[in-house]
């Protein structure tokens, strides 16, 4: 088989291929006194599900802040993501139907 050179179809440069990958933060060891954001993605009955999660987490000593995405069909707006990142130690994003 002949050696062949082809162009990369991903459009990524050598630098961007691995350099931009971010590592997730370490998981909190305990929720005691931590602030947990609950993100409702605006699917039907997401509130029902998150109410149960909220009760369960409050029993473990967590402070709860609730957030809602404008629509489940699109990624959360940048402002909302930054607000969650700056005010919470952890976030739970809920699907429901």
């Amino acid at each position, binding site marked *: 088989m002949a050696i*062949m050179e082809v162009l990369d179809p991903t459009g990524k440069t050598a630098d961007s291929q691995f350099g931009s990958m971010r590592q997730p933060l370490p998981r909190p060891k305990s929720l005691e006194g931590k602030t947990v954001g609950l993100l409702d993605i605006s699917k039907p009955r997401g509130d029902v599900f998150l109410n149960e999660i909220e009760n369960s987490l409050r029993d473990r000593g967590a402070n709860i802040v609730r957030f809602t995405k404008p629509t489940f069909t699109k990624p959360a707006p940048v402002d909302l993501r930054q607000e969650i990142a700056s005010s919470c130690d952890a976030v739970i994003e809920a699907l429901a139907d």
Partner: protein
Amino acid sequence: MTPPTTETPSDTATTAPPAPPSNQLIRFGAAEDPFEAMFDRGWSDGLPLVPPTAERVAQMLSGTTRAPDEVVAVVPPDLVECTVETVAVNAVMAGCRPEYLPVVLTAVEAACTDEFNMHGVLATTMSVGPIIIVNGPIRHRIGMNSGGNVLGQGNRANLTIGRTLQLVVRNVGGGRPGEIDQSTLGNPGKLSFCFAEDEEGSPWESLAQERGFPAEASTVTIFAGEGPRVMVDQLSRQPERLAKSLALCLLTTGHPKMALAFDSILVVSPEHSARFRDAGWSKQRLQEELRKNMMIDVGRLPAAAKGITTEESESIQVKQLPKFRDGGLLIVHAGGRAGLFSSAICGWASGPAGSQPVTHEIEHV
């Protein structure tokens, strides 16, 4: 300081060689079969690809006057900037000819708008994918099919343009089945779904004209839709009866009891459109008759319809809702000369909270 030149005028008139490609060159091993190597790198949609050699990509780029390093779009879901050259690489792999490239570039731009919402169209558990409808003179110039078997196989332009868009989403955007693409069932059109409107045989203004573009403009309209479903009516001779018959079938898109949920495309074939042409029906008249026959009886709003909570839905009493929102049914004329069939293509979550059809003019052609 620029040194004084000794070049003669004829020397300066020679064309500069094309700039070297910006995308990385990947060298396959001596023992590797290039076709297998491309599968192994995850670039394929499941079908073989044409190896995108620098020569083939340079040839592809001859199909546009746009600079290879121009950014066409930021492609979801990974939000990666995609250049003209990278689109050309994927167009080579999909099997495009250079003259298709302007259509492909416009389709990529239209798909990566906030209105179309390619991220959501990709991520949804529903079966939809991007569907490309081409209008205007470019349809003929590049040999697209708007006639027999229009939604099927056999036409290189139709098939490879649609395939390239999906390869760009896969390879540049990083959108792959089982990852961000969470579709439960998918549909065969997610490999490629692109066709041209039969404007010459249509009794009506084209889809692009309806959406505000002049007849001489070449355009791409992109729609989030699933597979086409044929509607058989070989008996109706009166336009009222045919409209009623098509409405009955269109009501079943998504679910017969779902109202105002999804947009749809109605592809009317020549033998069906002849019934409306003979009766002098405008496209608007057909829209009105269809709407009249697509009102859904509802005792009360279904739970959670359009953001209404379960509690609210118990208290809101309505009698009838239309199947489609205003402008939510796109009518396109296409298909072979014989056959009393039309086709329904069901969409996805409609409007600003989901995906909206987007039409862009194809420039630089």
